[in-house]
């Protein structure tokens, strides 16, 4: 389900090498579209023609599991791999439910604060903001007639959900559900995060309400905005698109409130799930997953999207094949910072030690982003917007 040609090519390279080393096993890659796979997988499962192994994600795996006994638990395999490679606990947490693991995490993605050192320096700011209060002050200072302090997505999309959620985590509002599975979006900490986002949006371009992933990055690289909150996809194109040296790209942990804050950021770990009951195919699938996580093979795999795909295993972080990638070596400080930030990473619906099946209906409709738009566009107060979000979420999961 990763369609960009560079990713498909690297996945194919890993598959080809595996096939040549394992003549009795044949792995073939089938590229699917994230936009259509949710409807297509239902038909495939109904007709028993689903793939033996499949891309897993935080919301896709529970979605497929709702179709019946189709995703195989991989707890034993994950335990075995953990003993060998040591997974980041934040990565495995996404796939743990009812005492079992339902997928093997393969790569992680984490948001950090990106900033333009050249623009901050020109304004006499020598250090990146560490707190919400600092961030607001920097954003205000850097907003002039032609530039904005920050570029934030506020469209009805997943990018906005993620940005808001990162700030929610730093305000202790990471739990969308309580331990019993009830929606707990409406709480003072979420309101606090919404108030802050509302303030920040004043220093973001006027059409931010239509921004998703690409627009803030374009504004950042063209120098129209000095800060952005996003994942590692900012690294590879920075020099070419900004015309500035790599040293002008700054990165920092997501700012947190000065009072009652905590480090945090949204963290995704995509993985691989097994969907066959055939013992021979299952064994072959496990063999393939073990192969991919061998450190030097794993490094090659991560280079499918250097900077964005981060290792989820300890020995993956030291794989030469990954560290020698030009993007990783050039921006080593930022890569290390992302790995540091990943330790405090969380994902909506995946707190309290297991995931909540209904999270897909909340994220699918971008209800956090919709609540934000109620506040920013429809001029609801942060409290009213959060209450609206709570009501919609309760209706969605009913």
């Amino acid at each position, binding site marked *: 389900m990763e369609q960009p040609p560079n990713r498909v090519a690297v996945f194919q390279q890993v598959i080809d090498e595996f096939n040549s080393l394992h003549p009795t096993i044949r792995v073939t890659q089938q590229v699917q579209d994230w936009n259509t796979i949710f409807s297509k997988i239902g038909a495939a499962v109904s007709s028993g023609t689903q793939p033996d192994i499949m891309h897993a994600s935080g919301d896709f795996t529970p979605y497929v599991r709702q*179709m019946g006994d189709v995703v195989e638990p991989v707890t034993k395999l994950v335990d075995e791999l953990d003993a060998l490679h040591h997974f980041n606990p934040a990565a495995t947490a996404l796939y743990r439910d009812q005492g079992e693991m339902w997928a093997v995490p393969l790569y992680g993605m984490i948001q950090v604060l990106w900033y333009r050192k050249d623009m901050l320096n020109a304004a006499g700011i020598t250090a990146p903001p560490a707190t919400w209060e600092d961030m607001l002050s920097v954003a205000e200072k850097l907003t002039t007639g032609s530039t904005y302090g920050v570029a934030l997505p506020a*469209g009805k999309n997943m990018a906005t959900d993620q940005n808001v959620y990162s700030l929610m985590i730093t305000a202790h509002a990471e739990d969308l559900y309580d331990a019993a599975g009830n929606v707990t979006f409406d709480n003072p900490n979420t309101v606090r995060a919404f108030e802050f986002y509302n303030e920040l949006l004043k220093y973001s371009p006027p059409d931010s309400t239509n*921004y998703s992933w690409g627009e803030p990055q374009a504004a950042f690289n063209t120098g129209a905005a000095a800060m952005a909150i996003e994942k590692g996809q900012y690294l590879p194109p920075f020099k070419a698109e900004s015309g500035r040296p790599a040293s002008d790209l700054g990165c920092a942990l997501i700012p947190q409130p000065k009072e009652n804050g905590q480090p945090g950021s949204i963290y995704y770990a995509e993985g691989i799930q097994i969907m066959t009951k055939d013992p021979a195919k299952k064994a072959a699938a496990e063999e393939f997953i073990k192969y991919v996580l061998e450190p030097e093979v794993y490094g090659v795999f991560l280079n499918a999207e250097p900077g964005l795909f981060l290792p989820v295993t300890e020995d993956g972080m030291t794989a030469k094949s990954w560290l020698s990638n030009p993007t990783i070596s050039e921006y080593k400080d930022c890569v290390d910072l992302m790995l540091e930030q990943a330790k405090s990473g969380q994902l909506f619906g995946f707190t309290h030690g297991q995931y909540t099946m209904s999270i897909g209906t909340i994220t699918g409709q971008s209800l956090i982003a919709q609540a934000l738009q109620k506040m920013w566009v429809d001029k609801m107060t942060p409290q009213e917007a959060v209450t609206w979000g709570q009501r919609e979420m309760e209706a969605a999961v009913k």
Partner: protein
Amino acid sequence: MLLRRKRLGPYGYARGLGLSWNRSYPTLIGYALLAPLAVWIALILVYPVFNTVYLSLTNTRIIGAPSGFIGLTNYQTVIASPEFWRGLLLSLAWLVGNGIVQTIAAFATALLLRQSWRFARQARIWVLLPWVIPTVAVAVIWQWMLNSNYGIISHGLQASGVISSPLNVFGSPAGALLGLIVTNSWHWFALPAVVIFGAMQTIPSALYDAAKVDGAGPIAQFRYITLPMIARTLFVLELVGNLWTFNVLDIIFLITRGGPADASLTMPVELYYTAFKAWRIGEAAAMTIVVLGLLAAVSFLYVRRFAPRGTGA
């Protein structure tokens, strides 16, 4: 004779008229050859509609997951839902907006293409350019052009002093639907322009010559000759064009996803979100059937009221 023919069908018609097997044989062969295609069309048209009706009577949430029969509950939910009526209203605004912009642009272009000037032949080909550009590219082009930071339109207007602050089209509730209408009309106006131009070319020039002799100016010529002579073409164009326009999902989804704050959430986008984002397939199916019924009724009334009678171009 015509009634009798309809009632008796091919066999009866042959027998009723006392025709021999040999004479009706070619007709039977004709039906036999058409039968597979007729069955195929019935399958691909009828099955999806019946399946949608069936889904609308169930509480299906995810395709493939267990579901049960719930009668007309989904229809009650849809009819009582303010979101459904808001989507319908936005679709109406979308339809009217596109209709006005595209009709003016298409007519103006067709009239321009009729003029004899140096590059008339080349213009007739190049005018189709927006239409052949893939929708994704159209969406990206217009998003770029209207972007507040690097959009050429925003910069141009600011540089020329028309506006003092950057343009905010797709990010504002007031501008989003309007911006989408302009974008979609730019993408599609070439097709009706060329069709109208083609219809205009079939009008005998002698009619215009005679009108000129009678003292008719360009407006009178357009009103009393051009419009009546292309009425049939316009009738079909309006019907098909409006149905196409109503069902547009891609360009809206690509640019605003129905936002901001649902300001451009037309019925097809609302349907898509209900079915594939909220995973309320049964409810989305009920919405589909209601919309299908409304479109069918409006189309029927349109045909009854506006179908041109007599001959025309």
